[in-house]
């Protein structure tokens, strides 16, 4: 098949994927704790049509070679784990992490998932759960008699109950960090899970071992920069148009060939 057509076709494909990534980022520009994705482009294999320096006859060599590139592909999408801005909500169980570290969530199947989304609430048993209703790990239960909940910057959860002058500690929030946090596998619902690329989690108390600290009453907003995404969208659209133009031009060339030679 004609390589010129296919090289341009891979460009259309890649720009299409890029557009999907941009659209997903923009759609999540208000998602708590969302981290923007980025598509990484990679040029495809080159076909060696004529090797430079190859023998053209026994005594002579080709002075020029020719390698034809075969287009482009999306090699990977990577998440940008830079800090999103922090929004004050005043919610008792709203938390944001300043610095590294993710909250641990126990999934219904017992495995752990991780998130930067710190909007927690209580279920009917007083367990601290995320917006989907999955409990935080290690589990924390707020007694029904609690009048107020305080979360310290080191993750200590304490409550005050009626009649008790001193607050009681009911749990300790722990954060997990990864060697390659960008390698975590996103699974939707603001959650990511451990993958072969991310490495094993290192769990610790907030504020220690390079982990960030917690802030009660605030949420980390999405780190999507809408201006960047819009500029990316324009670039992507123009690149798409160029590739489409390349296909139609190559098509016209072939058309010219078939209509003029018969």
């Amino acid at each position, binding site marked *: 098949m*004609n*390589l*010129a*057509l296919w*090289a*341009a076709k891979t*460009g259309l494909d890649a720009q299409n994927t890029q557009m999907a990534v941009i659209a997903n980022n923009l759609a999540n520009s208000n998602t708590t704790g969302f981290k923007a994705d980025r598509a*990484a*482009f*990679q*040029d495809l*294999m*080159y*076909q*060696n*049509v004529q090797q*430079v320096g190859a023998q053209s006859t026994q005594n002579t060599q080709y*002075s*020029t*070679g*020719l*390698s*034809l*590139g*075969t*287009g*482009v592909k999306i*090699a*990977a999408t*990577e998440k*940008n784990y*830079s800090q999103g801005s922090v929004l004050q909500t005043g919610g008792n169980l709203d938390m944001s992490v300043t610095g*590294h570290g993710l909250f641990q969530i126990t999934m219904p199947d017992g495995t752990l998932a991780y998130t930067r989304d710190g909007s927690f609430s209580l279920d009917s048993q007083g367990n601290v759960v995320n917006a989907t209703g999955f409990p935080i790990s290690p589990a924390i239960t707020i007694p029904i008699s609690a009048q107020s909940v305080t979360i310290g910057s080191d993750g200590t959860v304490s409550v005050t109950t009626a009649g008790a002058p001193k607050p009681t500690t009911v749990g300790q929030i722990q954060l997990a*960090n990864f*060697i*390659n946090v960008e*390698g975590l596998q996103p699974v939707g619902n603001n959650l990511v899970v451990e993958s*072969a*690329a991310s*490495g*094993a989690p*290192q769990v610790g108390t907030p504020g220690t*071992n*390079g*982990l960030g600290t917690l802030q009660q009453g605030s949420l980390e907003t999405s780190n999507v920069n809408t201006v960047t995404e819009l500029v990316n969208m324009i*670039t*992507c659209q*123009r*690149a798409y148009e*160029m*590739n489409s*133009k*390349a296909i139609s*031009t*190559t098509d*016209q*060339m072939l058309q*010219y060939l078939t209509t*003029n*030679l018969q």
Partner: protein
Amino acid sequence: MDRGLYVAMTGAKQIMQAQAVNNHNIANASTVGFRADSVSFVSSPIYGPGYATRVNAVAGDGGTDLSSGVITSTSRPLDIAVNGKGFIAVQGANGKEGYTRAGDLRVLESGAVVTATGLPVMSETGPLNIPPSTQVTIGSDGTVSIVPQGLSPAAQSQIDRIKLVNPQPKDLQKGADGLLYLKSGGKAAADETVSVTSGQLESSNVNAAQSLVNMIELQRLYEFQIKSINSADTDEQSAERMMLTA
């Protein structure tokens, strides 16, 4: 048979190949650190008995455009852009040391620093590896410093240095995997003068306007060749008719 037909056919074929190179450039208009390829045509006379009247065009590598692309800010600490001339040394899939301008790096679980395409980044002594850390910083001379895991940010320690090279453009050639290699097959020496900026990426250096004009030009040239084939055919037909009527 008129052999002029074959000259025009060769021309058309080579122009289509040049169009493929141009389309490949356009397809890579968004590839980080991509360097555009070009095609040059060489005239290749066909020698035989008598005077060499026919000259075929042969498309050859016109080299790689090594001019810089546009620098975009990403504010990701592991993104690096090479300032001005120079390249980042990586280990190609074939085990040889290749050079690239694509500086979107990441750290694997094993501690290996790789490019977005998964190729290990080289230090001056071998593939770059960093111990478990909570923060990685890349300095302007390629020095990698980390905050070791479990220590406070004050405990910065310098680990290694990314190998940055600046070979002569004439010594470089693009390999089948898109990396630049030394024509001699060896390794370039590290160059202290090459500097990088962290938090930035260099875009592709494909010039959109130039590629589009090039595309149109190639299209028209292709049509010329087809026209020549057509004319050769018409000439042949007229000659045949003359023979029949004579």
